[in-house]
């Protein structure tokens, strides 16, 4: 009798409870084999992550000691002392002379303005006429370069003459030129042939007139000119004293580097090497004081009256600036006196230099600095711009799609927004260079928009441009996550809200969006993670100027070019020698990026977890 036909109750139970013999490999059953396979896959991911961290740390870890040693040599060779003196003085001098030069230019313009205008008007007119007759000119040039017989030249020549005179008649002439001059101008235009490389006689005359007036004006404004020259020359003696010291310090540094690279070289005895520089310290300080007194002289020599208002304003600024600079000079003096060339640079100092150093200078013949601040500010500013643009855009789109759109609209909106993710970032970079940059620049030149901070802008490639493109890249992530979060708000909330007499809008903004808030925030943070880590677009579009942006522009700061953490690695890693301090510095930047991404992702996860809890 087969067991099936038996009554279940009378079937023997014991044998059915025993483990059956099945497939097994080295005593491992199939089920546990499958389980191990999956656990191995999971561990691979974790192991890879750990390896990446180890690898980054291995190459980055040496950075601090390398940088410390480099800064140590920088100090003990006396280079630091030179910079301590020279850099602030140069900055001060640049600032004051540029103000004075601008003041002088305004003053000169009050006398020579008209002559300059007339000359510039003619230059512009010639340019316009040439642009309008460009096709005929090109045709004539072709014939000329083909060295064709002279009789064939007559026709293209005639055509060029006609085109030129047509253009000369049609363009508007600015009112600074008298009617006689206009006549003369049109006559002389006929001589504008490709062979004629000389300036038009009229232009030459105007040029001479301007030069004559300029000389006269300079003589009239001699006090101001003298002040400019005095300011320019003020630190000359100081610089002169520094030149041999520079040479000596660099020499010491080279010796130290040779000693570092091979043990055969003699050891450098820094105190001996530093002696000439320390001996010169007194002279340097005398020169510095001399600079301070020259500033005072320049201050006294400033003319009391000006012809133009702009110059008066600039001179007022200079009057405020010069005493400040005198105070600064005293500060420099103290620093120089306090400076101790034998005090060894600490690891902490090197770490501070990396984290808060305002200069990223590499391959310098003088001294390399690896301060991450200019890169970090660039990255952060660009990310902030991107988030400010992307957040309202993607959240509004998500609210509309999940709450208001019809099913048909949803079918279009979602795939289209998510498709943006498929655009390769290099292609977005093209768009930034070829389209967006020009667009932003030309829009910024509209007189209507001149009140906006930073407008009109000169740089096509800037942080705002990069921020716009990165915003586009962050939108799909932020939109998808926000939409998911909104959709996962229980339907019962909406029903309860409407049953209490709320309108659809009230329901969405008082109940659904707040309930989805943690998911939306998680989306924003993941978008931020994507933006910070993005490389290609910022490398192409952000302008790659390694400097801390000038926040004096207010909001206009966003239209300045900048470099980023990611961009610097991509740009410089290929060119540095493996294992050098520069190489290690780039790895440190990589570690910094890694930490930032880790923190951002961790925050996003923390927010996402909060989303899961309130659903009961």
């Amino acid at each position: 009798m087969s067991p099936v036909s038996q009554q279940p109750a009378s079937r023997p139970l014991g044998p059915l409870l025993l483990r059956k013999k099945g497939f097994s490999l080295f005593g491992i059953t199939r089920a546990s084999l499958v389980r191990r396979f999956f656990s191995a896959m999971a561990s691979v991911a974790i192991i890879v992550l750990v390896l990446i961290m180890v690898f980054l740390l291995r190459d980055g870890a040496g950075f601090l000691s390398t940088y410390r040693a480099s800064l140590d040599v920088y100090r003990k060779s006396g280079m630091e002392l030179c910079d301590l003196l020279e850099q602030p003085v140069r900055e001060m001098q640049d600032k004051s002379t540029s103000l004075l030069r601008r003041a002088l230019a305004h003053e000169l313009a009050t006398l020579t303005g008209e002559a300059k205008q007339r000359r510039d008007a003619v230059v512009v007119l010639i340019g316009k006429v040439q642009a309008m007759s460009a096709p005929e000119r090109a045709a004539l040039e072709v014939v000329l370069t083909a060295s064709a017989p002279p009789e064939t030249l007559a026709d293209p020549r005639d055509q060029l003459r006609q085109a030129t005179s047509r253009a000369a008649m049609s363009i508007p002439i600015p009112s600074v030129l008298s009617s006689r001059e206009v006549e003369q101008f049109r006559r002389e235009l006929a001589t504008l042939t490709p062979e004629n490389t000389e300036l038009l006689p009229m232009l030459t005359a105007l040029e001479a007139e301007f030069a004559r007036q300029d000389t006269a004006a300079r003589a009239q404004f001699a006090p101001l000119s003298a002040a400019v020259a005095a300011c320019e020359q003020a630190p000359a003696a100081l610089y002169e004293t520094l030149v041999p010291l520079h040479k000596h310090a660099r020499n010491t540094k080279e010796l130290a580097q040779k000693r570092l690279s091979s043990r055969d070289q003699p050891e450098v005895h820094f105190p001996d090497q530093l002696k000439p520089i320390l001996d010169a310290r007194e002279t340097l300080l005398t020169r510095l004081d001399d600079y301070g007194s020259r500033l005072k002289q320049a201050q006294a020599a400033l003319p009391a009256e000006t012809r133009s208002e702009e110059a008066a304003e600039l001179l007022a600024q200079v009057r405020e600036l010069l005493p400040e600079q005198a105070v600064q000079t005293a500060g420099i003096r103290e620093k120089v006196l306090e400076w101790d060339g034998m005090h060894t640079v600490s690891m902490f100092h090197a770490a501070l230099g990396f984290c808060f150093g305002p200069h990223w200078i590499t391959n310098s013949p003088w001294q390399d600095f690896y301060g991450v601040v200019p890169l970090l500010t660039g990255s952060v500013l660009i990310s902030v711009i991107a988030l400010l643009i992307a957040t309202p855009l993607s959240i509004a789109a998500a609210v509309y799609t999940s709450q208001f759109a019809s099913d048909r609209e949803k079918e279009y909106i979602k795939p289209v927004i998510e498709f943006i993710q498929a655009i390769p970032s290099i292609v977005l970079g093209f768009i930034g260079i070829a389209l967006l940059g020009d667009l932003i620049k030309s829009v910024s030149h509209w007189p209507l928009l001149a009140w906006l901070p930073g407008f009109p802008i000169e740089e096509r490639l800037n942080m705002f441009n990069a921020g716009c493109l990165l915003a586009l890249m962050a939108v799909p992530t932020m939109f998808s996550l926000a939409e998911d979060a909104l959709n996962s708000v229980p339907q019962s909330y909406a029903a309860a809200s409407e049953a209490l007499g709320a309108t659809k809008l009230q329901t969405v903004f008082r109940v659904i969006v707040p309930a989805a808030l943690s998911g939306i925030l998680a989306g924003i943070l993941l978008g931020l993670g994507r933006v910070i880590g993005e490389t290609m677009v910022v490398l192409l579009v952000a302008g790659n100027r390694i400097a801390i942006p000038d926040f004096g522009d207010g909001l206009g700061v966003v239209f300045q070019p900048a470099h980023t953490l990611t961009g610097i690695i991509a740009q410089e890693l290929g060119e540095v020698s493996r294992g050098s301090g520069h190489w290690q510095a780039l790895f440190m930047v990589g570690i910094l990026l890694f930490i930032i991404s880790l923190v951002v992702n961790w925050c996003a996860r923390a927010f996402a977890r909060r989303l899961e809890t309130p659903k009961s």
Partner: protein
Amino acid sequence: MPTDSPSATPHPIISVERFNYAYGDHQVLFDVDLPIRSEDVTAFIGPSGCGKSTLLRSINRINDLVDSARVVSGTIKVDGVDLYSPEVDPIALRRQIGMVFQKYNPFPRSIFENAVYGLRVAGITDKAELMDAAERSLKAAALWEEVKDRLQELATGLSGGQQQRLCIARAIALQPRILLMDEPCAALDPIATAKIEELILSLRGSYTFVIVTHNMEQAKRIADRTTFFYKGKVIETGDTLDLFTKPGNKLTEDYVTGRLV
């Protein structure tokens, strides 16, 4: 048993007249005629899918949220006004006809914010007025004593029964004329159920209650009038005691005695 008032005072506040209702092409209510008397507790009973919830959800037009839902023909009049005429503002309507759902669904906010949500969306911002309303409605819902010291805590931290009473408080904060309840005790344990029933009995007379329930004992305990639905039609309606003790229809009899599922 609350059946002492005879059906001799026929003042229906809600009158459903030849009402046909459908989801897309699928008709769920057929020629429903039903007067619901003011200040009574009316229970809708019937097997799953009989249309009793749909009728309830048509009375405050919350079914408008369902895209395919539509009235085929007929009317529901409240105090003589056809609810589905274009002049009716569904928002204003829902302020007068409150609703409590099967699954308690307070918003993930503080207890206080839940209690005054209806007033807030109605545009009331005065702090004192909101506080008054919250206290009044929480007291009416017999929840005040339990939550008065933690009004700013998250409502979702309360027990299930408390959450459902908060939902009732939230509905009565607007002082509606009619309160619709869609199986309000389905997700609750017996003790919480008893509290809700007690609450309904204590509020009887202040509001007109319409309650959908699967629990016939509950209908017997709390309802003045009971209506039996079967396959989208009203089979029988009457005083609760009469309907359960001497049903006039074979189907009703089968259902109340447990022979019809």
